[in-house]
Protein backbone atom coordinates (compact mmCIF):
# COMPACT_ATOMS: atom_id res chain seq x y z
CA UNK A 1 0.00 0.00 0.00
CA UNK A 2 2.53 2.54 1.16
CA UNK A 3 4.93 1.23 -1.47
CA UNK A 4 2.33 1.87 -4.16
CA UNK A 5 1.74 5.30 -2.75
CA UNK A 6 5.48 6.02 -2.89
CA UNK A 7 6.01 4.53 -6.35
CA UNK A 8 2.97 6.06 -8.03
CA UNK A 9 4.46 9.56 -8.62
CA UNK A 10 7.70 8.06 -9.92
CA UNK A 11 5.81 6.45 -12.81
CA UNK A 12 5.74 9.91 -14.29
CA UNK A 13 8.92 10.96 -15.98
CA UNK A 14 8.46 14.61 -14.96
CA UNK A 15 8.18 13.58 -11.31
CA UNK A 16 11.44 11.63 -11.24
CA UNK A 17 13.15 14.55 -12.95
CA UNK A 18 11.64 16.95 -10.43
CA UNK A 19 12.82 14.81 -7.54
CA UNK A 20 16.32 14.50 -8.98
CA UNK A 21 16.70 18.23 -9.60
CA UNK A 22 15.28 19.12 -6.20
CA UNK A 23 17.61 16.69 -4.42
CA UNK A 24 20.76 17.81 -6.24
CA UNK A 25 19.93 21.48 -5.77
CA UNK A 26 18.88 20.91 -2.16
CA UNK A 27 22.05 19.06 -1.16
CA UNK A 28 24.33 21.66 -2.76
CA UNK A 29 22.43 24.49 -1.06
CA UNK A 30 22.42 22.67 2.28
CA UNK A 31 26.21 22.28 2.28
CA UNK A 32 26.76 25.91 1.35
CA UNK A 33 24.19 27.20 3.83
CA UNK A 34 26.13 25.81 6.77
CA UNK A 35 28.98 28.22 6.00
CA UNK A 36 26.80 31.12 4.92
CA UNK A 37 24.88 31.27 8.22
CA UNK A 38 28.10 31.12 10.23
CA UNK A 39 30.01 33.73 8.23
CA UNK A 40 26.94 35.98 8.23
CA UNK A 41 26.51 35.99 4.46
CA UNK A 42 22.86 34.94 4.34
CA UNK A 43 21.94 38.26 2.73
CA UNK A 44 24.55 37.64 0.03
CA UNK A 45 22.58 34.52 -0.91
CA UNK A 46 19.45 36.63 -1.28
CA UNK A 47 21.32 39.21 -3.36
CA UNK A 48 22.98 36.78 -5.74
CA UNK A 49 19.77 34.84 -6.34
CA UNK A 50 17.87 37.98 -7.40
CA UNK A 51 20.76 39.38 -9.37
CA UNK A 52 20.88 36.43 -11.78
CA UNK A 53 17.53 37.35 -13.36
CA UNK A 54 19.00 39.47 -16.20
CA UNK A 55 21.52 36.70 -16.80
CA UNK A 56 18.78 34.14 -17.26
CA UNK A 57 16.89 36.50 -19.58
CA UNK A 58 19.96 37.20 -21.69
CA UNK A 59 20.78 33.49 -21.89
CA UNK A 60 17.35 32.71 -23.30
CA UNK A 61 17.62 35.59 -25.75
CA UNK A 62 21.00 34.53 -27.08
CA UNK A 63 20.32 30.82 -26.88
CA UNK A 64 23.04 30.14 -24.31
CA UNK A 65 22.71 27.53 -21.59
CA UNK A 66 20.86 29.35 -18.79
CA UNK A 67 23.70 28.61 -16.37
CA UNK A 68 26.21 30.73 -18.29
CA UNK A 69 24.32 34.01 -18.12
CA UNK A 70 23.11 33.35 -14.58
CA UNK A 71 26.61 32.62 -13.35
CA UNK A 72 28.08 35.71 -15.05
CA UNK A 73 25.50 37.97 -13.43
CA UNK A 74 25.82 36.22 -10.07
CA UNK A 75 29.56 36.80 -10.01
CA UNK A 76 29.06 40.30 -11.39
CA UNK A 77 26.71 41.12 -8.53
CA UNK A 78 29.24 39.92 -5.97
CA UNK A 79 31.96 42.02 -7.62
CA UNK A 80 29.70 45.09 -7.77
CA UNK A 81 28.74 44.77 -4.12
CA UNK A 82 32.38 44.39 -3.14
CA UNK A 83 33.29 47.36 -5.32
CA UNK A 84 30.61 49.65 -3.84
CA UNK A 85 31.62 48.64 -0.33
CA UNK A 86 35.33 49.21 -0.96
CA UNK A 87 35.01 52.60 -2.65
CA UNK A 88 32.25 54.30 -0.65
CA UNK A 89 31.23 54.63 2.98
CA UNK A 90 27.90 52.94 2.29
CA UNK A 91 27.14 50.17 4.76
CA UNK A 92 27.25 46.58 3.65
CA UNK A 93 23.50 45.87 3.70
CA UNK A 94 22.75 49.05 1.75
CA UNK A 95 25.37 48.17 -0.87
CA UNK A 96 23.83 44.71 -1.23
CA UNK A 97 20.33 46.17 -1.45
CA UNK A 98 21.18 48.74 -4.13
CA UNK A 99 23.04 46.27 -6.33
CA UNK A 100 20.67 43.32 -6.31
CA UNK A 101 17.44 45.28 -6.73
CA UNK A 102 18.98 47.18 -9.65
CA UNK A 103 20.00 43.97 -11.39
CA UNK A 104 16.64 42.35 -10.66
CA UNK A 105 14.89 45.37 -12.17
CA UNK A 106 17.16 45.16 -15.22
CA UNK A 107 16.06 41.55 -15.63
CA UNK A 108 12.38 42.52 -15.45
CA UNK A 109 12.88 45.22 -18.08
CA UNK A 110 14.76 42.89 -20.44
CA UNK A 111 12.09 40.21 -20.17
CA UNK A 112 9.23 42.64 -20.68
CA UNK A 113 10.94 44.24 -23.68
CA UNK A 114 11.63 41.01 -25.52
CA UNK A 115 8.83 38.91 -26.93
CA UNK A 116 10.05 35.43 -26.10
CA UNK A 117 9.00 32.14 -24.66
CA UNK A 118 10.64 33.08 -21.38
CA UNK A 119 8.01 32.73 -18.70
CA UNK A 120 8.80 35.14 -15.90
CA UNK A 121 6.68 33.09 -13.52
CA UNK A 122 8.84 30.03 -14.14
CA UNK A 123 12.05 31.91 -13.43
CA UNK A 124 10.71 33.57 -10.30
CA UNK A 125 8.96 30.58 -8.79
CA UNK A 126 10.69 27.65 -10.45
CA UNK A 127 9.37 25.17 -12.93
CA UNK A 128 10.81 21.94 -11.67
CA UNK A 129 8.06 19.87 -13.32
CA UNK A 130 9.11 21.16 -16.73
CA UNK A 131 12.90 20.90 -16.72
CA UNK A 132 14.49 19.83 -19.99
CA UNK A 133 17.20 17.19 -20.43
CA UNK A 134 19.77 19.92 -21.02
CA UNK A 135 18.72 21.62 -17.78
CA UNK A 136 19.07 18.38 -15.84
CA UNK A 137 22.58 17.82 -17.15
CA UNK A 138 23.56 21.35 -16.15
CA UNK A 139 22.06 20.98 -12.68
CA UNK A 140 23.66 17.62 -11.94
CA UNK A 141 27.12 18.54 -13.25
CA UNK A 142 27.26 21.95 -11.57
CA UNK A 143 25.76 20.63 -8.35
CA UNK A 144 28.26 17.77 -8.18
CA UNK A 145 31.24 20.04 -8.89
CA UNK A 146 30.17 22.66 -6.33
CA UNK A 147 29.48 20.04 -3.65
CA UNK A 148 32.80 18.32 -4.26
CA UNK A 149 34.77 21.58 -3.96
CA UNK A 150 32.88 22.53 -0.79
CA UNK A 151 33.61 19.17 0.82
CA UNK A 152 37.27 19.07 -0.23
CA UNK A 153 37.94 22.59 1.07
CA UNK A 154 35.61 22.35 4.06
CA UNK A 155 38.33 22.78 6.71
CA UNK A 156 39.70 25.95 5.08
CA UNK A 157 36.21 27.37 4.64
CA UNK A 158 35.39 26.68 8.27
CA UNK A 159 38.62 28.38 9.32
CA UNK A 160 37.69 31.36 7.13
CA UNK A 161 34.30 31.56 8.85
CA UNK A 162 35.73 31.13 12.34
CA UNK A 163 39.05 32.97 12.43
CA UNK A 164 40.21 34.93 9.42
CA UNK A 165 43.19 36.39 11.29
CA UNK A 166 44.64 32.94 11.97
CA UNK A 167 44.10 32.02 8.33
CA UNK A 168 46.14 35.13 7.43
CA UNK A 169 48.78 34.33 10.06
CA UNK A 170 49.49 30.91 8.55
CA UNK A 171 49.73 32.36 5.07
CA UNK A 172 46.38 31.23 3.62
CA UNK A 173 44.98 33.53 0.96
CA UNK A 174 41.75 34.65 2.63
CA UNK A 175 40.71 36.79 -0.34
CA UNK A 176 40.93 33.76 -2.59
CA UNK A 177 38.97 31.66 -0.13
CA UNK A 178 36.24 34.31 0.13
CA UNK A 179 36.13 34.55 -3.66
CA UNK A 180 35.90 30.76 -3.89
CA UNK A 181 32.95 30.66 -1.51
CA UNK A 182 31.16 33.49 -3.33
CA UNK A 183 31.83 31.85 -6.70
CA UNK A 184 30.35 28.62 -5.38
CA UNK A 185 27.40 30.64 -4.09
CA UNK A 186 26.77 31.93 -7.60
CA UNK A 187 27.04 28.41 -9.04
CA UNK A 188 24.71 27.01 -6.42
CA UNK A 189 22.10 29.70 -7.04
CA UNK A 190 22.20 28.76 -10.72
CA UNK A 191 21.46 25.16 -9.78
CA UNK A 192 18.77 25.88 -7.25
CA UNK A 193 16.73 28.36 -9.21
CA UNK A 194 15.74 25.50 -11.51
CA UNK A 195 14.19 23.76 -8.54
CA UNK A 196 12.48 26.50 -6.60
CA UNK A 197 12.92 29.72 -8.58
CA UNK A 198 14.71 32.94 -7.78
CA UNK A 199 12.46 34.04 -4.93
CA UNK A 200 12.77 30.87 -2.87
CA UNK A 201 16.43 30.06 -3.54
CA UNK A 202 17.38 32.09 -0.52
CA UNK A 203 15.30 29.77 1.68
CA UNK A 204 17.27 26.78 0.41
CA UNK A 205 20.49 28.72 1.14
CA UNK A 206 19.67 29.67 4.72
CA UNK A 207 17.12 27.37 6.32
CA UNK A 208 19.06 24.06 6.28
CA UNK A 209 22.15 25.58 7.90
CA UNK A 210 20.06 27.46 10.44
CA UNK A 211 18.10 24.30 11.27
CA UNK A 212 21.23 22.18 11.67
CA UNK A 213 22.86 24.79 13.91
CA UNK A 214 20.00 24.26 16.37
CA UNK A 215 20.76 20.55 16.52
CA UNK A 216 24.50 20.12 17.12
CA UNK A 217 27.66 21.88 18.25
CA UNK A 218 30.01 20.20 15.78
CA UNK A 219 30.55 21.61 12.33
CA UNK A 220 30.95 18.30 10.50
CA UNK A 221 27.77 16.94 12.07
CA UNK A 222 26.05 20.18 11.15
CA UNK A 223 26.93 19.65 7.48
CA UNK A 224 25.56 16.11 7.60
CA UNK A 225 22.38 17.19 9.37
CA UNK A 226 21.76 20.08 6.97
CA UNK A 227 21.98 17.63 4.07
CA UNK A 228 19.77 15.08 5.83
CA UNK A 229 17.10 17.62 6.68
CA UNK A 230 17.13 18.92 3.10
CA UNK A 231 16.84 15.46 1.55
CA UNK A 232 13.86 14.69 3.80
CA UNK A 233 12.23 18.05 3.06
CA UNK A 234 12.80 17.64 -0.68
CA UNK A 235 11.13 14.23 -0.76
CA UNK A 236 8.24 15.36 1.44
CA UNK A 237 7.82 18.53 -0.61
CA UNK A 238 7.86 16.82 -4.01
CA UNK A 239 5.35 14.17 -2.88
CA UNK A 240 3.14 16.77 -1.26
CA UNK A 241 3.10 18.76 -4.47
CA UNK A 242 2.05 15.63 -6.39
CA UNK A 243 -0.72 14.44 -4.09
CA UNK A 244 -2.02 17.85 -3.00
CA UNK A 245 -1.47 19.45 -6.41
CA UNK A 246 0.40 22.45 -5.02
CA UNK A 247 3.51 24.37 -6.10
CA UNK A 248 6.56 22.11 -5.87
CA UNK A 249 9.05 24.83 -4.91
CA UNK A 250 6.60 26.14 -2.34
CA UNK A 251 6.02 22.68 -0.84
CA UNK A 252 9.78 21.96 -0.60
CA UNK A 253 10.58 25.25 1.11
CA UNK A 254 7.58 24.86 3.43
CA UNK A 255 8.84 21.38 4.41
CA UNK A 256 12.22 22.91 5.24
CA UNK A 257 10.50 25.56 7.32
CA UNK A 258 8.62 22.81 9.16
CA UNK A 259 11.94 21.09 9.93
CA UNK A 260 13.25 24.39 11.27
CA UNK A 261 10.21 24.77 13.54
CA UNK A 262 10.67 21.23 14.86
CA UNK A 263 14.37 21.92 15.55
CA UNK A 264 13.41 25.20 17.19
CA UNK A 265 10.99 23.48 19.50
CA UNK A 266 12.72 20.17 20.18
CA UNK A 267 16.37 20.67 19.16
CA UNK A 268 19.10 19.28 21.44
CA UNK A 269 20.94 22.61 21.39
CA UNK A 270 18.51 24.90 23.18
CA UNK A 271 15.17 23.80 21.70
CA UNK A 272 12.40 25.76 23.44
CA UNK A 273 10.44 22.69 24.55
CA UNK A 274 13.61 20.70 25.28
CA UNK A 275 14.82 23.38 27.67
CA UNK A 276 11.44 23.61 29.39
CA UNK A 277 11.33 19.84 29.92
CA UNK A 278 14.91 19.85 31.19
CA UNK A 279 14.08 22.61 33.63
CA UNK A 280 11.01 20.75 34.87
CA UNK A 281 13.00 17.57 35.34
CA UNK A 282 15.68 19.49 37.20
CA UNK A 283 13.06 20.93 39.54
CA UNK A 284 11.48 17.50 40.12
CA UNK A 285 14.83 15.87 40.90
Amino acid at each position, binding site marked *: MIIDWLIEPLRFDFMTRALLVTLVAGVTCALLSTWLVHIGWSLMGDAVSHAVLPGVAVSYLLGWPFAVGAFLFGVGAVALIGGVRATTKIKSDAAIGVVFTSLFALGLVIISATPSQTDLGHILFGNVLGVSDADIVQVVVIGAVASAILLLKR*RDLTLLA*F*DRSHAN*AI*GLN*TRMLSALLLGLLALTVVVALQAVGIILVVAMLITPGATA*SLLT*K*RFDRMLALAVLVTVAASVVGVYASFYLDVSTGGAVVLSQALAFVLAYLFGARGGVVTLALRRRRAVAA
Partner: protein
Amino acid sequence: MSETRMPAAAPAIEVRGLAVRYDEVVALDGVDLTLHPGRVTGLLGMNGSGKSTLFGALMGSVKPVAGSIRLFGGQPARARRENRVSYVPQSEAVDWDFPVSVADVVMMGRYGRQGFTRRVRSADRAAVEQALERVGLSEFAGRQIGELSGGQRKRVFVARGIAQEAGLMLLDEPFAGVDKGSERTIITLLRELAGEGCGILVSTHDLAGVPELCDEVVLLQKRVLFQGTPAEALAPERLALAFGLGVELP
Protein backbone atom coordinates in the same frame (compact mmCIF):
# COMPACT_ATOMS: atom_id res chain seq x y z
CA MET B 1 70.30 45.85 25.16
CA SER B 2 70.33 42.24 24.02
CA GLU B 3 72.42 42.83 20.93
CA THR B 4 75.62 41.65 22.55
CA ARG B 5 73.95 38.48 23.79
CA MET B 6 72.48 37.14 20.57
CA PRO B 7 74.17 38.53 17.51
CA ALA B 8 73.66 35.46 15.33
CA ALA B 9 69.91 34.88 15.32
CA ALA B 10 67.86 37.17 13.10
CA PRO B 11 65.25 39.18 14.97
CA ALA B 12 61.79 37.59 15.06
CA ILE B 13 60.36 40.98 14.13
CA GLU B 14 62.14 43.88 12.49
CA VAL B 15 59.93 46.83 11.60
CA ARG B 16 61.32 50.02 10.05
CA GLY B 17 59.41 53.22 9.41
CA LEU B 18 56.05 51.46 9.25
CA ALA B 19 53.07 53.68 8.39
CA VAL B 20 49.42 52.64 8.07
CA ARG B 21 46.53 54.89 7.11
CA TYR B 22 42.80 54.20 7.03
CA ASP B 23 41.50 56.77 4.55
CA GLU B 24 42.54 60.05 6.18
CA VAL B 25 43.18 58.60 9.63
CA VAL B 26 46.79 57.88 10.52
CA ALA B 27 46.91 54.60 12.49
CA LEU B 28 50.67 54.06 12.56
CA ASP B 29 53.33 56.58 11.63
CA GLY B 30 56.99 55.66 11.40
CA VAL B 31 57.05 52.65 13.73
CA ASP B 32 60.45 51.10 14.40
CA LEU B 33 60.47 47.90 16.39
CA THR B 34 62.83 44.98 16.91
CA LEU B 35 61.87 41.84 18.76
CA HIS B 36 64.30 39.02 19.42
CA PRO B 37 63.47 35.33 19.78
CA GLY B 38 63.25 34.09 23.34
CA ARG B 39 61.95 37.36 24.74
CA VAL B 40 58.55 38.59 25.83
CA THR B 41 57.78 42.12 24.72
CA GLY B 42 54.82 44.01 26.14
CA LEU B 43 53.02 46.42 23.84
CA LEU B 44 51.40 49.22 25.83
CA GLY B 45 49.29 52.06 24.57
CA MET B 46 45.82 53.46 24.91
CA ASN B 47 42.86 52.50 22.75
CA GLY B 48 43.44 53.71 19.22
CA SER B 49 47.21 53.83 19.68
CA GLY B 50 47.59 51.32 16.83
CA LYS B 51 48.28 48.08 18.70
CA SER B 52 45.78 45.99 16.73
CA THR B 53 46.83 47.70 13.49
CA LEU B 54 50.42 46.70 14.20
CA PHE B 55 49.33 43.09 14.69
CA GLY B 56 47.33 43.29 11.47
CA ALA B 57 50.35 44.57 9.57
CA LEU B 58 52.53 41.77 10.97
CA MET B 59 49.97 39.22 9.79
CA GLY B 60 49.46 40.76 6.38
CA SER B 61 45.79 41.67 6.84
CA VAL B 62 46.59 45.40 6.95
CA LYS B 63 48.50 47.01 4.08
CA PRO B 64 51.14 49.59 5.10
CA VAL B 65 51.58 52.77 3.05
CA ALA B 66 55.27 52.98 3.92
CA GLY B 67 58.04 51.15 5.74
CA SER B 68 59.28 47.59 5.85
CA ILE B 69 58.60 44.48 7.89
CA ARG B 70 60.93 41.52 8.15
CA LEU B 71 60.11 38.40 10.13
CA PHE B 72 63.01 36.10 11.03
CA GLY B 73 65.17 38.06 8.62
CA GLY B 74 62.97 37.41 5.57
CA GLN B 75 59.75 38.29 3.83
CA PRO B 76 56.74 38.23 6.19
CA ALA B 77 54.63 36.22 3.73
CA ARG B 78 57.28 33.53 3.68
CA ALA B 79 57.51 33.38 7.48
CA ARG B 80 53.72 33.03 7.63
CA ARG B 81 53.68 30.26 5.05
CA GLU B 82 56.37 28.50 7.06
CA ASN B 83 54.06 28.52 10.09
CA ARG B 84 56.37 30.71 12.14
CA VAL B 85 53.70 33.24 13.12
CA SER B 86 50.83 32.46 15.49
CA TYR B 87 48.12 34.76 16.74
CA VAL B 88 45.89 34.79 19.82
CA PRO B 89 42.93 37.06 18.96
CA GLN B 90 41.10 39.45 21.27
CA SER B 91 38.09 37.86 22.93
CA GLU B 92 35.68 40.24 21.20
CA ALA B 93 37.00 39.11 17.82
CA VAL B 94 35.96 35.48 18.39
CA ASP B 95 32.48 34.02 17.82
CA TRP B 96 32.27 31.86 20.94
CA ASP B 97 29.07 30.16 19.74
CA PHE B 98 30.83 28.87 16.63
CA PRO B 99 30.43 25.09 16.31
CA VAL B 100 34.05 24.07 16.91
CA SER B 101 35.51 22.09 19.77
CA VAL B 102 38.65 22.90 21.74
CA ALA B 103 40.56 20.21 19.83
CA ASP B 104 39.24 21.56 16.48
CA VAL B 105 40.66 25.00 17.24
CA VAL B 106 44.06 23.64 18.27
CA MET B 107 44.09 21.47 15.12
CA MET B 108 43.76 24.69 13.07
CA GLY B 109 47.34 25.37 14.17
CA ARG B 110 48.36 22.37 12.07
CA TYR B 111 46.60 23.40 8.84
CA GLY B 112 49.71 25.02 7.39
CA ARG B 113 51.54 21.70 7.71
CA GLN B 114 48.77 19.66 6.09
CA GLY B 115 47.88 19.04 2.47
CA PHE B 116 45.22 20.47 0.16
CA THR B 117 42.25 19.01 2.07
CA ARG B 118 43.93 19.35 5.53
CA ARG B 119 43.78 15.64 6.12
CA VAL B 120 44.80 14.90 9.72
CA ARG B 121 47.90 12.75 10.18
CA SER B 122 49.00 11.02 13.37
CA ALA B 123 51.74 13.62 13.91
CA ASP B 124 49.03 16.30 13.88
CA ARG B 125 46.93 14.45 16.40
CA ALA B 126 49.95 13.97 18.67
CA ALA B 127 50.86 17.67 18.42
CA VAL B 128 47.32 18.69 19.38
CA GLU B 129 47.27 16.33 22.35
CA GLN B 130 50.63 17.57 23.58
CA ALA B 131 49.65 21.20 23.19
CA LEU B 132 46.43 20.65 25.12
CA GLU B 133 48.30 18.85 27.86
CA ARG B 134 50.83 21.66 27.99
CA VAL B 135 48.12 24.26 28.68
CA GLY B 136 46.22 21.95 31.02
CA LEU B 137 43.10 21.53 28.90
CA SER B 138 43.30 17.85 27.89
CA GLU B 139 40.06 16.98 29.64
CA PHE B 140 38.22 19.74 27.75
CA ALA B 141 39.29 18.63 24.25
CA GLY B 142 35.75 17.75 23.19
CA ARG B 143 34.04 20.84 24.60
CA GLN B 144 32.56 23.53 22.40
CA ILE B 145 34.84 26.55 22.88
CA GLY B 146 32.11 28.76 24.36
CA GLU B 147 31.73 26.33 27.26
CA LEU B 148 35.06 27.36 28.78
CA SER B 149 35.97 30.14 31.22
CA GLY B 150 37.72 33.30 30.02
CA GLY B 151 41.18 32.08 30.99
CA GLN B 152 40.66 28.62 29.51
CA ARG B 153 39.50 30.19 26.25
CA LYS B 154 42.79 32.09 25.98
CA ARG B 155 44.78 28.97 26.69
CA VAL B 156 43.05 27.18 23.78
CA PHE B 157 44.49 29.75 21.38
CA VAL B 158 47.92 29.62 23.02
CA ALA B 159 47.74 25.83 22.56
CA ARG B 160 46.99 26.43 18.88
CA GLY B 161 50.24 28.41 18.62
CA ILE B 162 52.11 25.61 20.40
CA ALA B 163 50.67 22.97 18.06
CA GLN B 164 51.69 25.19 15.16
CA GLU B 165 55.29 25.15 16.49
CA ALA B 166 55.47 28.86 15.74
CA GLY B 167 58.60 30.85 16.59
CA LEU B 168 56.64 34.06 17.06
CA MET B 169 53.46 34.44 19.06
CA LEU B 170 51.32 37.56 18.90
CA LEU B 171 48.74 38.01 21.67
CA ASP B 172 46.15 40.81 21.48
CA GLU B 173 44.91 41.71 24.98
CA PRO B 174 45.15 38.17 26.41
CA PHE B 175 44.29 39.26 29.95
CA ALA B 176 41.04 41.11 29.25
CA GLY B 177 38.19 39.32 31.03
CA VAL B 178 40.56 36.79 32.60
CA ASP B 179 40.66 36.19 36.36
CA LYS B 180 43.88 36.59 38.35
CA GLY B 181 44.48 32.84 38.74
CA SER B 182 44.21 32.21 35.01
CA GLU B 183 46.35 35.25 34.29
CA ARG B 184 49.09 33.73 36.42
CA THR B 185 48.83 30.42 34.55
CA ILE B 186 49.07 32.19 31.20
CA ILE B 187 52.06 34.31 32.31
CA THR B 188 53.90 31.18 33.49
CA LEU B 189 53.14 29.47 30.19
CA LEU B 190 54.37 32.41 28.09
CA ARG B 191 57.57 32.63 30.15
CA GLU B 192 58.17 28.91 29.50
CA LEU B 193 57.61 29.35 25.77
CA ALA B 194 60.01 32.30 25.69
CA GLY B 195 62.52 30.15 27.55
CA GLU B 196 62.30 27.67 24.68
CA GLY B 197 63.16 30.39 22.18
CA CYS B 198 59.76 31.69 21.11
CA GLY B 199 59.50 35.44 20.49
CA ILE B 200 56.35 36.82 22.10
CA LEU B 201 54.59 40.14 21.56
CA VAL B 202 51.73 40.85 23.99
CA SER B 203 49.48 43.88 23.91
CA THR B 204 47.98 44.55 27.31
CA HIS B 205 46.24 47.08 29.51
CA ASP B 206 47.22 45.20 32.61
CA LEU B 207 50.18 47.21 33.90
CA ALA B 208 50.43 45.22 37.14
CA GLY B 209 51.37 42.01 35.34
CA VAL B 210 53.94 43.63 33.08
CA PRO B 211 57.12 43.34 35.23
CA GLU B 212 56.55 39.63 35.79
CA LEU B 213 55.66 38.85 32.18
CA CYS B 214 57.85 41.07 30.05
CA ASP B 215 61.57 41.32 29.33
CA GLU B 216 60.93 44.47 27.43
CA VAL B 217 58.18 47.02 26.97
CA VAL B 218 57.21 49.08 23.93
CA LEU B 219 55.11 52.19 24.47
CA LEU B 220 53.05 52.87 21.37
CA GLN B 221 51.16 55.97 20.32
CA LYS B 222 50.95 55.68 16.53
CA ARG B 223 54.75 55.42 16.73
CA VAL B 224 57.10 53.86 19.25
CA LEU B 225 57.57 56.36 22.10
CA PHE B 226 59.86 54.14 24.07
CA GLN B 227 61.37 50.66 24.04
CA GLY B 228 63.21 49.40 27.10
CA THR B 229 62.95 47.53 30.37
CA PRO B 230 59.61 47.27 32.20
CA ALA B 231 60.96 49.33 35.10
CA GLU B 232 61.93 52.18 32.78
CA ALA B 233 58.73 51.98 30.77
CA LEU B 234 56.50 52.00 33.84
CA ALA B 235 58.09 55.15 35.21
CA PRO B 236 55.25 57.65 35.70
CA GLU B 237 56.56 60.26 33.27
CA ARG B 238 56.88 57.68 30.45
CA LEU B 239 53.43 56.21 31.11
CA ALA B 240 52.05 59.72 31.01
CA LEU B 241 53.64 60.10 27.61
CA ALA B 242 52.02 56.91 26.28
CA PHE B 243 48.63 57.38 27.83
CA GLY B 244 48.39 61.02 26.91
CA LEU B 245 48.31 62.71 30.30
CA GLY B 246 49.46 66.26 29.91
CA VAL B 247 51.00 65.84 26.50
CA GLU B 248 49.90 67.11 23.15
CA LEU B 249 48.84 64.27 20.91
CA PRO B 250 49.34 64.41 17.17
